[in-house]
């Protein structure tokens, strides 16, 4: 038992220590490797959680739901740190980053990891809130790290919208406490997740409803649901690419995780409004809106940022539909999307470095000039567009078909979003990856391992899912109701 606690806490301690050390160490090579090492350690510990029975303390807990998220998070964090090592190296060579800012960057990276892990294993909704805000603020700082006008402008936008989101989420949290207090009694007990779940049925339904509205908007801002998405494309486009990868691959998931927790709470209360329809609506809006937004993008990173919004929409839609099948699909889609999207950002980051620009107009014929990167991008787009044999096809198949059996009209709307997005993505891919090469092209010193590792997993998952994983997902799907 004690050991388990240690494992849990060490997920938090390791990043904090690493952050402290990285903040003072000079020299980017050393720090980068240290960064990787820390991420690796965290990942290994998180994997060990699988052999830990569900357990909850006053502040921390581990159950089937957050296990999945934690392992995914730490894994992507690891691969991203590997990618970032080579990426940041190049940035220093061309002088876009100074050693000081790199030191800051690595420290922040670990703080971010700390925040996300804390948010995932927090058993106290107040703590979870704090953790998510820490994560958000660190990303704000990292988005602005280039100190260019665009970067600062994006960071500022992210900061303001994020702060409002923070406020709304907090208000929601307070309301939940208010709803819980009469039942559970005053004090910290009324904010402990596991206790809340036990008594949720007796909470004041109307209060819960109001709370959920605020939480949906507050955390929804972080998830990037339209119309709360505005910060997302610019933050992705202007920040360093590893951060874009982390944002799309992880932070959105973490916020979604918080949302899911509260959804479970509402689902347990018969009198409360069904959270499903709200989530379904916002999911559909985000999916279709983002799909249309893909068409006129000029900046390749912003393009994929919008695609993230679209997929978040699909995932929220799936969880909103609920039911074992849709929830399973949602989880699968979330996992696949994190892996694929972060891999795409790895690729795009290297492409942007090779071509020296993010403007789609200046990038062309990549499969000719830098075949490996070009084809990696093709694979990524194929995967993200939901074409087989990649994993996203399976999740989209499940979402659409299971929805179609229950709500044909919604399914058709969703399908519309998917097909429009397909069009938008390939419209750009055609000009970027194929056709006559455009623009100057430097030789690529890319780290291919992370991206192709991700693609390999996504590919494998599209064809064969190991039973263990399936049962895990199924348990979680049952939890989500």
């Amino acid at each position, binding site marked *: 038992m004690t050991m388990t606690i240690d494992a849990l806490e060490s997920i938090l301690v390791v990043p904090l220590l690493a952050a402290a050390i990285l903040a003072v160490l000079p020299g980017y090579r050393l720090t980068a490797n240290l960064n990787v090492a820390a991420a690796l350690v965290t990942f290994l510990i998180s994997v060990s959680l699988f052999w830990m029975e569900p357990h909850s303390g006053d502040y921390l807990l581990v159950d089937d739901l957050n296990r999945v998220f934690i392992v995914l998070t730490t894994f992507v964090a690891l691969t991203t740190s590997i990618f970032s090592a080579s990426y940041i190296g190049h940035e220093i060579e061309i002088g876009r980053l100074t050693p000081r800012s790199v030191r800051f960057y690595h420290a922040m990276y670990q703080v971010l990891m700390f925040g996300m892990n804390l948010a995932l294993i927090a058993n106290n909704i107040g703590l979870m809130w704090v953790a998510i805000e820490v994560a958000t603020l660190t990303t704000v700082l990292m988005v602005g790290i280039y100190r260019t006008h665009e970067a600062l402008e994006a960071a*500022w*936008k992210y900061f*303001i*919208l994020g702060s*409002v989101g923070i406020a*709304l989420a907090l208000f929601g949290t307070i309301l939940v406490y208010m709803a819980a207090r009469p039942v559970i009694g005053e004090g910290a007990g009324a904010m402990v997740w596991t206790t809340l779940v036990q008594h949720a049925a007796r909470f004041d339904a*109307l209060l819960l*409803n*109001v709370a959920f*509205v*605020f939480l949906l*908007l507050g955390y929804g*801002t972080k998830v990037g649901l339209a*119309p*709360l998405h*505005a*910060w997302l*494309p610019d933050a992705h486009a202007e920040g360093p690419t590893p951060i874009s990868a982390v944002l799309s691959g992880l932070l959105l998931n973490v916020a979604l995780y918080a949302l899911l927790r509260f959804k479970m709470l509402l689902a347990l209360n018969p009198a409360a*409004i069904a959270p499903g329809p*709200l989530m379904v609506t916002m999911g559909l809006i985000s999916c279709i*809106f983002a799909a*249309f*937004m893909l*068409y*006129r993008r000029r900046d390749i990173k912003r393009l994929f940022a919008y695609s993230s919004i679209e997929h978040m929409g699909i995932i929220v839609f799936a969880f909103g539909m609920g039911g074992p*099948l849709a929830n399973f699909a949602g989880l699968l889609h979330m996992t696949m999307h994190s892996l694929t999207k972060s891999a795409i950002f790895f690729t795009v980051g290297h492409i942007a470095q090779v071509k020296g620009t993010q403007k789609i107009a200046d990038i062309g*014929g990549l499969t000719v000039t830098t075949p490996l990167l070009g084809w990696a991008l093709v694979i990524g787009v*194929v995967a993200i567009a939901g*074409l*087989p*044999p990649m994993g996203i*096809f399976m999740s989209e*198949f*499940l979402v*659409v*078909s*299971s929805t*179609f*059996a*229950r709500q044909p009209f919604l*399914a*058709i709307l969703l*399908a519309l979003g*998917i*097909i*429009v997005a*397909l*069009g938008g993505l*390939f*419209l750009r891919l*055609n*000009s970027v990856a*194929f*056709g*006559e090469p455009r623009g100057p092209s430097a030789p690529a010193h890319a780290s291919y391992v992370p991206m192709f590792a991700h693609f390999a997993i996504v590919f494998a998952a599209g*064809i*064969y*899912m190991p*039973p263990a994983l*399936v049962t895990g997902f199924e348990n979680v799907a049952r939890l989500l109701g």
Partner: protein
Amino acid sequence: MVIDSLYAVAALLVLAPAAIALSASPAGRPVVYGVSLALSLVLVAAAAVSLVGGQQSNAVLPLGLPWLGAHFRIDALSAFFLIVVNLGAAAASLFAFGYGKHEEFPGRVLPFYPAYLAAMNLVLLSADAFSFLVSWEFMSLSSWALVVAHHRERDNMRAGYVYLLMAGFGTLALLFAFGLMAGAGGDYVFDAMRATPPTAGLAALVLILALVGAGSKAGLVPLHAWLPLAHPAAPSHVSALMSGVMTKVAVYGFIRIVFDLAGAPAWWWSMPVIVAGAVTAAMGVLYALMQRDLKRVLAYSTIENIGIVFVALGLALAFKANAMTFAAALAMTAALLHVLNHSLFKSLLFCGAGAVLASTGERDLEKLGGLIHRMPQTAFVFLVGCAAISALPPLNGFVSEWLAFQAILVSPQLSSWGLKLMIPAAGALLALSAALAGACFVRVYGIAFLGRPRSDAAGFAQETERVSIVAMGLLAAVCLALGILPGFAIDVLAPVTQLVAGARMPVQSGVEWLSIVPIVESRSSYNGLLVFLFMAASGMIGAYGIHRLASDKIRRGAIWDCGFPDASPVTQYSGDSFAQPIRRVFGSLVFRAREVGEMPPPNSTLPARFAAIVHDPVWDTLYEPLNGFISFATEKLNVLQFLTIRRYLSLVFAALVILLLVLAAWP
């Protein structure tokens, strides 16, 4: 059998990544195509065994949807289509031995070729919705990669783009169809769907969705627009596969869903199918007549033949709904036989086009001509293909169309008046398209192979590789064989029709003189063999007699030039001018065709110009508006990318207020 087939497919899938490495060296090409050839022959053998043996075999692999697994099965239907697909694949691979030499970027073709073959086979093998759709979409994807193999031509990229979008659209339609049949339980295994057929209303929806989904891949008007763009864009042996084979996979999908899974058909089901088929046939061949690009002509003619197949399928549906199983079997046989025939001669023709393209570098009819002198063997096999696709006896194309007409002639026995009156009209369209197909291929062959060369490229063309000739020759031979001995093919098809139409045609092998008798001899019969022998005999006799008794001397002289000696090749009839009468008759109606000619003023040396402008009505009325809508919507929505922070905040604020209002309004 299914296991063996799966091994073969797996081998193809392994070959695909291996081909990436192989494509680096020139020695790699024959390896890839050789292995593909061998494997497709293996698959043909396996399918043939299970079709003739008549036993079906299943397999379940722990792949795909975790709680479902991937189900595979070979029954009569899939076995037949496996034969069609892999015959085409074998021919294409053999042809590619020679043709592949001319490939500019083998690295972009070789890896996807085996994957494409594997995908098509998997579609036919899979027995649950998920693996079906995965293979289906993977088939689209791999062929897309082949379409954009020559990615530096802008048109190819556009073709690939339209193609992929239409493919995705079709897949979603099929997904909905399966979703309906699987029900809320989400049981995607075909057996389960078969066990619990959907209710009448849902089944109707399934029919429409299947027609849209499979039709968009098969190229039914108005979902055909991608086909003439994509098929010619690919390397020719791939075009042969896409046109000759992949469209048949789509037909398979339609048959599987509508005849096998969707339960008993309602009486009106056949109507949309027949109408779509007839319109497609007529439109397709008219389009084909207007084209200048050789490969595009062939692609449009594919659309026409798909139309014929769907008309026959519609007939089968009508008869099945009226419990006239013998007629249903007849119509279904016609459809399946035409599927087989078309896969043969269309592959042959595309290979021929590829040979021409390889040796002249031209696809434009107006730049070809006189190839019969430069490439005699290609010219001969191509002629056979043209005759077959124009449904001339004693070749195979005629047999299937003849059977289709025989099926139409049974229609008065249907109970519904609508069908009684509609089917002959469809027959008229069918006859029209048959006649126009003849005209179309006279044009193609006459312009491309006969006459005098219209460009140096055509003038100095070389005969193509021996192995390519062999591939095409084999296809031509099979065309002839099926034409003169159709009875055997019909008998082989019996289990398939038994499966999907509930009956079989009378046994043909017993009939004297090997003629075929759809129903009874007093009603109608046809004997390709005797027609062939008759014509051969009388032709020989005539020739022999004349050469013996009268003169057999030949003098070469100048062309009758009407007093204008050595006119340049430009004065020949061109493709456009050849199509002019038909364009005037049909085109002005269907294509808003206009002819703009400008004559220079008297005694000026300027050339006179003439242009025929043909619109594609479908493209104008369906795709352009859609495109317009998308760009409009994106334009309008794009504003949201450029708002100010305050405005974004007001969005958040509005969302909050709305949600609170919802709560306030909540009971």
